[in-house]
């Protein structure tokens, strides 16, 4: 079965050592590393089930930020004094960690951005405006996050290109029927590695191979994949792959664009200003080497260093173990939740294809009311369109509730969720 392969998509070329860890996660020990989990909310211990939205941060990440500001805060690539050297070394070491984490061929392929949204917009402005022309087609999927949809709408409007979409089936899996035909004349195929709303892990190898046959470039939105499973950008073989720090135990304000070096070399700069230049006269400028050509102005230095610490942390757990932990949680949660009366579960029923996010609707309680009610028991879930309004159209609902998991979640939190859902239903049905 092809779909069974995809959760190993990143590992085709062997597991890089940074992910090697055969052990199951010690969730008790992990939880002690996340200070926020000691917090009470409305008189109950926090049950945080919104990690697909943003993850919580472990001590080593918080400590890395603190240490930077207390000991060696300085601007990078500029100062010749001691603390500036330390800051520069730590910032570039973080890039190296990120490069290894996704198995990039070179650190020059790792560009720091604010978030994956900016990473995608960078490709839109820099690569897109130079390479997408009237009549070209851009193929997306109907499960895309607004951040991997609206940039392409605007690029299409600007260039005269056309948008097309892959549809989903009743289990929230991409419909690959006629994929080769759909890829004809496509300049760019852009899709999420894992859906933030449905949890679907998309069949990356199939999609990339088909795009290659059609001569299309491929951008993958890895916002929901890199935090949760081993990802190997060389094995995947796309052109652009973006992800976002705050969902992978890292700080806010930092994201990553990986792109093939040849592409980055050929692309014009995106933001212009200090640091991204080589030589500037009043009327002309030339550009710095990669990756700095794409990093204009003072960067999110502390945040990059914090992301490096997050990568270290995740490597310590082992990404294969992280994926397995979430697979098991989803397996359990799907089983428990399907017994709730009046529930509709979205996304694949097969936990091998289902990342750690489960969306659902209840017949008798609106998602916002549910989220508000269970917050009274300290349970944090997300209610809304999850930045996927078109997908809500497809599902025929204005909003869903979503519970999403990460390394610090336990099966008993699923039990608490299920119990709280039942009590919320009682409020509404009397």
């Amino acid at each position, binding site marked *: 079965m092809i779909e069974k392969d995809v959760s190993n998509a990143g590992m085709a070329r062997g597991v890089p050592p940074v992910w090697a860890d055969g052990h199951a996660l010690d969730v008790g020990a992990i939880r002690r590393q996340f200070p926020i989990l000691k917090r009470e909310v409305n008189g109950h211990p926090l049950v945080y089930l919104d990690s697909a939205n943003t993850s919580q941060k472990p001590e080593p990440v918080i400590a890395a930020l603190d240490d930077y500001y207390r000991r060696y805060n300085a601007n990078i690539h500029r100062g010749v004094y001691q603390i500036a050297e330390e800051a520069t070394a730590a910032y570039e070491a973080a890039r190296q960690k990120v490069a290894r984490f996704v198995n990039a061929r070179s650190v020059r392929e790792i560009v720091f951005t604010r978030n994956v949204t900016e990473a995608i917009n960078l490709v839109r402005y820099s690569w897109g405006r130079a390479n997408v022309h009237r009549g070209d087609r851009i193929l997306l999927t109907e499960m895309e996050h607004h951040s991997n949809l609206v940039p392409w709408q605007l690029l299409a409007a600007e260039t005269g290109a056309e948008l097309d979409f892959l549809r989903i089936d009743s289990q929230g899996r991409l419909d690959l029927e006629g994929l080769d035909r759909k890829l004809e004349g496509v300049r760019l195929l852009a899709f999420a590695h894992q859906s933030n709303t449905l949890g679907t892990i998309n069949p990356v190898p199939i999609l990339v191979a088909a795009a290659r046959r059609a001569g299309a470039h491929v951008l993958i939105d890895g916002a929901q994949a890199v935090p949760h499973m081993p990802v190997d950008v060389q094995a995947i073989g796309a052109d652009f792959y973006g992800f976002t720090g705050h969902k992978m135990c890292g700080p806010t304000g930092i994201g990553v664009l990986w792109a093939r070096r040849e592409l980055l070399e050929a692309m014009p700069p995106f933001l212009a200003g200090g640091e991204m230049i080589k030589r500037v006269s009043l009327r002309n400028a030339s550009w710095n080497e990669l990756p700095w050509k794409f990093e204009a102005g003072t960067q999110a230095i502390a945040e990059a260093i914090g992301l490096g610490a997050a990568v270290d942390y995740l490597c310590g757990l082992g990404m294969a173990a992280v994926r397995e932990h979430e697979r098991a949680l989803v397996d359990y949660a799907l089983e428990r939740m399907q017994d709730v009366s009046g529930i509709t579960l979205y996304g694949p029923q097969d936990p091998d294809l289902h990342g750690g996010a489960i969306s659902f609707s209840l017949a008798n309680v609106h998602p916002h009311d549910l989220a*508000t009610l269970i917050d009274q028991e300290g349970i944090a879930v997300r209610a809304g369109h999850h930045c996927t309004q078109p997908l809500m159209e497809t599902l025929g609902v204005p909003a869903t509730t979503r519970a999403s998991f990460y390394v610090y979640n336990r099966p008993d939190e699923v039990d608490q969720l299920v119990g709280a859902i039942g009590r919320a239903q009682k*409020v509404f049905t009397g």
Partner: protein
Amino acid sequence: MSSDLYREQILEHYRNPHNFGEIQDADITQEGDNPLCGDMITMYLKLDDGRLGSVKFRGRGCAISQASASILTDLVMGRPVDELKRFPTQALLDELGIPISPARMKCATLSVNTLRVALGAGVEDEDDAD
């Protein structure tokens, strides 16, 4: 489960909303929505000599948005239009009588904002206070 948040009155209005339906020959029909959470409301107004002769609504969404619409229609029925253009949001919140968190404020105020737009009055812009 806290009953403060969803008092029986709110649930009652949600289950059996007052003035629910359409006015076929409405003078003003106004849609309003809350894209963030998908709450929707349509208000039908019939004017009568400077007063709101009749008001009905249709909608779908969370309990707070729908109950607040139901409560609002009771509050405004028959009142002078000029007065309603300045109808204070707080009056509706007081009537709801439950604590509304900032994230749910848009649900709670969807109906009154839709009414204001319907009457050609501006929406209260609290963000500009300094």
